[in-house]
């Protein structure tokens, strides 16, 4: 047991906790608010009709909560990081198409309806999360449940 984590592993751990925490926070804010609120935000991206937007609004917060928890705890770290990265990438594509189409989006719905940042701000923020997710994927095994399960 002389495998003391190096700088990269510590960065990976911090990235894992940061991305997991952000996903958990974003998911909780939406799960504790009426789904219709997030549903309306999804509708403004003009990709789904009202019914599908509402169904997505029911589903996405739970996915964020589960992915955030598993990633932060380091359960199936690589898979959790990959799944979280896929979600961020998907959000980036949605934001990018809204920006290209010039859609008048006042609240991206990312952290519930309370916060309304510009699309550019949210796009850059998601890029940062994507980079952190990559660090969590590559070096996020320190102090993880994956590691603990090996030694038990």
């Amino acid at each position, binding site marked *: 047991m002389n495998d003391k984590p190096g700088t990269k592993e510590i960065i990976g751990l911090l990235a894992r906790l940061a991305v997991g925490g952000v996903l958990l926070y974003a998911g*909780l*804010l939406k*799960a*504790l*608010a*009426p*789904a*219709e*609120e997030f549903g*309306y935000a999804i509708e403004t991206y003009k990709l789904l009709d009202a019914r599908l937007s509402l169904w997505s609004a029911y589903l996405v917060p*739970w996915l964020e*909560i*589960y992915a955030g*928890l*598993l990633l932060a*705890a380091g*359960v*199936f770290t690589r898979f959790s990081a990959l799944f979280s990265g896929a979600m961020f990438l998907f959000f980036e594509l949605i934001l990018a198409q809204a920006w290209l189409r010039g859609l008048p989006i006042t609240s991206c719905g990312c952290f*519930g*309806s*309370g916060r309304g940042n510009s699309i550019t701000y949210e796009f850059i923020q998601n890029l940062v999360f994507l980079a952190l997710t990559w660090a969590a994927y590559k070096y996020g095994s320190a102090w993880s*449940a*994956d590691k603990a*399960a*090996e030694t*038990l």
Partner: protein
Amino acid sequence: MIDRKKARLLALAGIMIFVSTIAVLLARQFNLGPERPAPAFRSFGPETAPVHIHEYTDLACPACRHAAGKIDEMMKIYGPGLRVSFKHYPLMNIHPWSFHAAAYADCAGEQGKFKEYAEVLFENQEKWAQAKEMPKEFEAYAARLKLDWPKMAACADSAETHKRINLDIAEADMKGVNATPTFFINGKRAVGGGQLVDQARKFDNILRAAKP
């Protein structure tokens, strides 16, 4: 060995998903989510007031009319200690025009007269609440209060107004509101005017201590 590790992790993932699901559902039940702010025209009293009442109301409901009187009285008594925000919860299955009334009241609010319009609707509830056809009273009351009716009618038909009311309804459903008026006094639930007064008594010291 690999299988045993995977099984442990799967069990852990299952437990985490189960526990987090229950925790979130309980948090919803106990109303721990953030409170959606009501629009400024539906909020009265200082923002810094130590006691904040959110009332889910239906403009066609007689109990809400009685409660409106009690709220006015409380605002006079407690002044700077109290802020009241109204949210719509039209019971459309028993009051066919209550959604319309909510929309018109909001649009009157956008012209600065939410409270006045709501008061007239409450006072004359029996004239329009159970009407067979679209009540003409909505326009007549707007004229009485010197509101711009064409602007108000357009606003009441707008998607933005409907969205605002639908979100109030969705929020109320999530909080388990099923009767009007339902109040949340600093988060504590009270249904009807009687419970409102009872609950408000618990905040009496804070309410009276507030300075303008």
